[in-house]
C-alpha cells in the first residue's frame, strides 16, 4: 500500500517567508495565551488555599528580584530594536545584560528565597536567605509551585537568549530577518509580565499568617 503518492518536486510548495513569519507570530502568541491558563491555575490555587493570608517573606528580597527582572525587559527591548536597525554590537550586549539580569533573578529566587544551600546572612537588618520550606503546609506548597514554575520559564528564557546571542555572534539575523530574536523577546517580556501578577499574589496581598 502506498498511502501518499510520491514525487520529489518540492518546487513551488515552499511557504514564502512572509507567510511563515505570520504563522510564527500567531503561533507564539497562541502559546502565550495557552500558558495564561497554566499561570491562572496556579493563581487560583493560591487564592483558594491562602485566601486573605500569605506567608512571611523578605519584602526587600522580593522587591529586589522583581526590580531586576523588570529592568531586564528594558535591555531585551534594546537588543531587539538594535538588530532591527542593524546595530549588532548593541544587540549582542543587550542580550548578554538581559541574560545576566535574568540569572540574577533566578539566583535571587532559587539560592536566596528558596535557600537551597541552607545559608544564613543578616546584613543591613535584612535576612538575605529565606526560611520557608517546601513542606511547610500550603504556604510552602503554593509558594514553591508558583515560583518554581516561573523560575523554570525564566531558566528556559535565559537558555533561549544565550542561543540567540551565540548565533548572533556568528552573524545570523539581519534587520529584515530576525524572527528568532523577536520570538525570544516576546517570550522574555511574557515571562516578566507573569511575574508582575505573581509578585503581588505572593508578597503583597493578604495579611501575614
Amino acid at each position, binding site marked *: *500500500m*502506498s*498511502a*501518499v*503518492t*510520491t*514525487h*520529489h*518536486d*518540492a518546487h*513551488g*510548495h515552499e*511557504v514564502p517567508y512572509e*507567510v*511563515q513569519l*505570520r*504563522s510564527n507570530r*500567531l*503561533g507564539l502568541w*497562541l*502559546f502565550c*495565551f*495557552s*500558558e*495564561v*491558563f*497554566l499561570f*491562572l*491555575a*496556579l493563581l*487560583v*490555587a493560591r487564592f*483558594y*488555599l491562602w485566601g486573605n493570608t500569605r506567608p512571611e517573606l523578605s519584602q526587600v528580597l522580593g522587591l529586589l528580584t522583581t526590580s531586576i527582572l523588570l529592568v531586564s525587559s528594558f535591555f531585551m527591548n534594546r537588543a531587539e530594536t538594535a538588530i532591527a536597525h542593524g546595530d549588532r554590537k548593541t544587540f549582542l550586549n543587550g542580550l548578554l545584560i538581559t541574560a545576566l539580569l535574568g540569572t540574577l533573578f533566578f539566583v535571587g529566587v532559587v539560592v536566596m528565597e528558596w535557600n537551597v544551600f541552607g545559608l544564613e546572612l543578616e546584613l543591613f537588618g535584612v535576612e538575605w536567605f529565606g526560611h520557608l520550606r*517546601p*513542606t511547610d*503546609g*500550603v504556604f*510552602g*506548597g*503554593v509558594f*514553591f*509551585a508558583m515560583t518554581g514554575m516561573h523560575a523554570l520559564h525564566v531558566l528556559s528564557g535565559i537558555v533561549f537568549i544565550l*542561543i540567540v546571542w*551565540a*548565533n548572533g555572534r*556568528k552573524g*545570523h539575523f539581519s534587520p529584515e530577518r530576525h524572527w528568532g530574536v523577536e520570538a525570544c523577546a516576546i517570550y522574555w517580556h511574557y515571562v516578566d509580565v507573569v511575574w508582575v501578577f505573581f509578585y503581588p499574589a505572593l508578597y503583597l496581598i493578604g495579611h501575614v499568617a
Partner: protein
Amino acid sequence: MKALWYFLTSSFTRGLIGQAIFTAIGMTFVNAIRSVMGLEANAEPGVVFGALLGVFGFLLGAGVLTDWIKWIFGKETPLRHGPPQGKPEWTRYLNVDYNHKVIGIQYGYTSLLVLLVGGLFALIFRIELAQPGMTLLTNDQYNTLFSAHGIVMITAMLLGVGAMVNYLVPLMIGAADMAFPRLNAFSYWVGIPAVVLILAGMVVGGWDTGWVGYAPLTFRAPLGVQLFLLGFYVNGFSSIAGSINLIVTVATMRAKGMTLFRMPIFVWAAIAAAIIQMTATQTVGVALLMNVTERAIGLSFFNPANGGDPLLYQHLFWFYSHPVVYLFILPGLGVISELLPVFSRKPLFGYKWIALSSLGIALVGFLVWAHHMFVAGLDNSLRIPFMISTLFVAVPTGVKFFSWVGTIWEGKISLETPMLFVLGAISVFLIGGVTGPILGTIPTDMHLHDTYWVVGHFHATMFGGFIFPFFAAIYYWYPKITGRMYKESLGKLHFWLMVPGFWVMSLGQMATGIMGMRRRIADYDPALGVQNIHVLITLAAFVIGWSVLIMVYNLVSSARSQELADPNPWRSRSPEWQIPSPVPEFNYDVPFEVVGDPYDYGLSGVAYIRMAPASGD
C-alpha cells in the same frame, strides 16, 4: 529479515531505547544526589524525574528533536520531503516524517492500536462482572484495569482526533501542509512515551483511583499512580502543540476565497476542539503536577491533613476534563455534519448555525465543570448556577440535531457503510444526550451519582459523539487515503454487530445503575438482581470487540487489493476528492479557488471550488 532490520532501526524502536536509557539515568541521578545529601530513602522523586527525562530520551532517540538541535547551533534544515531514500514506503510510518498525511495516518493506526488495548482491558473486567463474587481478578487487578481502561481510551480518542484533524484539515483548506510540520511530528511522537508510561504504571503496582486520579486517594495508591499521572501530563504536550498548530494553519493557510463561512464544516469543529485543547489542558496539567509533587516530595495542596483542600484538585481537573469530552465529540459531530449532505444529496441545513453551535458548545463547556462535584461538598451557592449552565449545553447540541434532521429530510439517502455509521452515531448520541440532563439536575444526580447510570450515559456520548463518527470517517476517507475500496459487506457486518451491541451495552449499564449497581466496584450483591443484565452487557462488549476486529481486518486486507478505487466514489464536492488518491506529496499541484458554498448538493450549476490554472513562474 530486511523488514525486521528496518523495524529495529526505526524512530519507534530508537525512541523506546532512548526512553529506557534516559529513565535509568534520571533515576540514578536523583538517587545519587539524595544519598549524597543524606536524605531518607524515597524512590518516588527518582521515578518522577526519570520518567520525565525518559520522555526527553524518547524524543531524542526517535529523532524528533534533531532539526531543532541543529537550529540551536545555527544550522539551516530544509524540510525533508518524500519517502526515505532506498527504503520501502511503509518504513515512513515508523519513522519521524513531516508530511501531515503521514502524521495523520500515524495518529490513526496508533489510535486504533491503543483502542484495541483499552478495549481488551474492558473485556477482562467485564468477565469479572458477569457474575457476583470474585472469580477472575483480585480487587487490585480490577481497580488497575478499569482505571487504565479509562485513561487508555481517552488517549486513543485524543489520537483519533489528531488523525482526523491532521489528515483532513490541510486538505480541506487547500494547504500543502500544517503551518509547523516539525511541531506536528513532535505532537504525534510525544504521545508514544506517554502511553508507555501509563502501561508501565500498570506493571509497577497499578493504581486504583480511576482515570480521574482524585487526591488524596492518589497518596495511598501504589507507585503505578505516579506513572499514570505523568503519562496523562505528557499527553498534554501533544494536545497543546497540536491545537496551536491547527489554529495557525487554518488562520494563515486557507485557499483563496475560502472565507470563514465557506470552510468545510469539519474545519469549524476542529477549530472549536482546538480552542479547548489549547487552553483547558494547561489547568489539568497543573492539577496533575501538584498531585505528583505532593506525593513525591511533600508539597501540600490537596491533603486536608496538611491544610490542603481536595476540592481544589477536582476544580482544576474538571475544568479540563469536562471540556475534554467536547474536544472528542466536536470533531465527531463535525464528521456527521460533513457526511450527511453527501449521502442525502441535499445542502447542509443551517450551515452557519452548525458552525457557530460548535463554538457555542466549546464556550458553554467551560462553564459547567462543577456538575461533577454536586455531591462532593460543593457550596450550595455554586451548585444551582452550575446546574443551569449544564442544562444550557442542550441548546447548541439541539441545534445540531435539528440541522441533521433537516438535512436528511426528503433527501435521496444512500446507505453505504459511512452513512450507516453516521446514522448509528446519531441514534447513540441521542441516547447519551437525553440521559445527560438527568445527571445535570442536582436532585436526580444525588441519586444516580457514582452508579452505572453514569457509565451508560458517558459511553453513549463517547460512542455516539466520537467512536461511531470516527469509524464513519475511517470508511469514508479510506479510498482517499489508500486509493483502494474497503469491502462493503464486511463494513455492513461491522455496523450491524456493533450498533445493536452498543445499545444493549449502554442501556444495560443504565438499567443496572438505576437498580443500584455502583461503578468502580469489582463485586456486587446478588440480591440487587442485576446479574442477568451484567451477563448481557459482557456478551455485548464481546460482540463490539469482535466487530472492531472485523473492521481492522477489512482495513488491512483491502489495502493490499489490486483494484483501484473510484477517485470520487461518494460524489463529494469537497476539494480533497477532486485530486488523485492517494493524495500527492504536496496535496494540490495547482491551487484552487473557492467560488461557492460547500454543501450545495442536489443543486445544479453551483461549484464549490475551481482549480486555478497554474501560475507561470
